[in-house]
């Protein structure tokens, strides 16, 4: 049983074909890296997997359950969490409130208009735990607007991890980070237990290649190469895509 299976997924925006019969199988616990030059269709593929875009054809299954037509909120309830290439957080609120919102998203409590959110100590404790995992518990009460880019990246990962996902989609988690911050996030991702399957888009090969079990190279919406690190790096098509040889 695959954790995540994408079968012959196609998507076009008018005349532009951004996903051309993309297929990939990600095993439970696997770390899959998706690479490709700008415009290869990596983020579009993530949107299709997460349910933010509907495919023209093809299917997506999560642990053998067909989720192709499910909206993104239902995919979250089935154990799929994601981060975004451009950080999308709740900038008016504190880091803690951001993580509480992530926890609330999967709780029936989110419909309750009568209780005080601040009085939900269990939720607050779980949010603190999630922040401790990413090393942000000391600034939990800080407004997001007063945090650095690296801290926001960590907060976004904390939100995803707080939901105890089965499959975690990370869209360029190292983008815009300093060398030290990259090292920190890399350690953080390496510490995620194997119960969580990770699919990651990343341009920073030096940092990301070590994390991946298998790599998929995407180009013009098509899977060009797939395999282990050595297989993909040594494949002449990879060099052709990146160096134009």
């Amino acid at each position, binding site marked *: 049983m695959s954790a995540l299976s994408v079968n012959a997924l196609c998507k076009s925006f008018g005349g532009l074909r951004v996903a051309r019969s993309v297929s990939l199988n990600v095993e439970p616990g696997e770390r899959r890296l998706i690479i490709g030059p700008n415009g290869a269709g990596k983020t579009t593929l993530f949107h299709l997997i997460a349910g933010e875009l509907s495919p023209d054809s093809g299917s997506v299954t999560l642990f053998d359950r067909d989720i192709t037509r499910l909206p993104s*909120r239902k995919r979250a309830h089935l154990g799929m969490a994601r981060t975004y290439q451009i950080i999308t957080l709740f900038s008016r609120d504190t880091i803690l409130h951001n993580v509480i919102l992530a926890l609330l998203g999967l709780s029936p409590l989110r419909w*309750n208009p*009568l209780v005080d959110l601040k009085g939900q100590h269990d939720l607050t404790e779980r949010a603190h735990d999630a922040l401790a995992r990413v090393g942000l518990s000391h600034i939990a009460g800080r407004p997001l607007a007063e945090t650095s880019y690296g801290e926001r990246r960590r907060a976004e990962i904390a939100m995803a991890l707080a939901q105890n996902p089965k499959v975690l989609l990370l869209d360029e988690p190292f983008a815009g980070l300093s060398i030290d911050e990259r090292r920190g996030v890399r350690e953080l991702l390496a510490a995620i237990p194997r119960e969580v399957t990770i699919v990651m888009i990343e341009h920073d090969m030096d940092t990301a290649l070590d994390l991946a079990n298998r790599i998929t190279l995407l180009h013009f919406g098509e899977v060009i190469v797939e395999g282990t690190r050595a297989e993909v790096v040594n494949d002449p098509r990879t060099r052709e895509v990146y160096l134009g040889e």
Partner: protein
Amino acid sequence: MNSRHLRFAAIAIALSLLATLPFWVGNAYYINIASQILFWAIFALALNVLVGYAGLVSLGHAGLFGVAGYTAALLLQAGYGHGTAILLALVAALAAAAAFAVLALRSTGIGFLMITLALGQILWGIAYRWVSLTNGDNGVVLHGRPAPFGVSLATPSAFYYTTLVVFVFAILSMVVFTRSPFGASVCGTRDQPRRMSALGYHVWLIRFIAFLFSGFWTGVAGLLFIYYNQFISPQVVALQTSAEVLLMVISGGTATLLGPITGAVIVVIMKNVVSAYVERWNLVLGVIFVAIITFMPEGLVPGSMRLWRLGWRALTNRRTNVLKSLPEPPA
């Protein structure tokens, strides 16, 4: 005394002042003005649920206000009791809010605004042109106010206290709503709808429920309006009413509880008191709005708080600097 104590003290003083208002105001005219401020404030608070917390700007809420008012007026005219009329008016306001929401929530931003504007105008058209039902431009007249538990609401003081009780309930419901997990969900859909969906929230349904909540309190305000004036005409349902209440919310400060109330105080006083002394009071109101938006774009209440914080910080810094500049005491 910490900020929590200060807040409690401020609330206690405000409630005491409101509870004793008929005694220290004395004049029936000003008691009526106070009643008007309260029910317009309820309307503004209701609109603020959408504008401030859900990030959905509606220009059709006067339609919902009018639906409650017209339904009650027509039922009372048809011989129904006040209890039935009030209940059915609120049901009608909720039904209209649900219909508005289903149509308008297909879009957000300017699209949402235009759809609510169009729906409000349709209701205005019905009130104006369906003469056999609404009596057209002549409006519907009500004969008498209700007398709950044998207490007549005919006097300005009795009506004021009834409006005050409803106003306090409205405020309490807003406080509970904004502090609840559902309130946090509504604010989340305002700030990052896509992220909220990815986190497992049903964004459309959250907005729909927020719309119903807003529609309910708009209906309540509409009922208080019709019982206060004992008359309703198409002018109440017109775009001008929606725009005025939206200005109350924006000028006072969106996503705050005090903001819409402050906005209601400004508009009602300008319309009723200043208009007695200044013929072109609309111009004065316009200048006030422009000044607020220019100097406090976030609204009067948040803007004043910002200035207060800046002033307080400057004062404490100055005090600290003076203390630092003092010579060290001899050892």
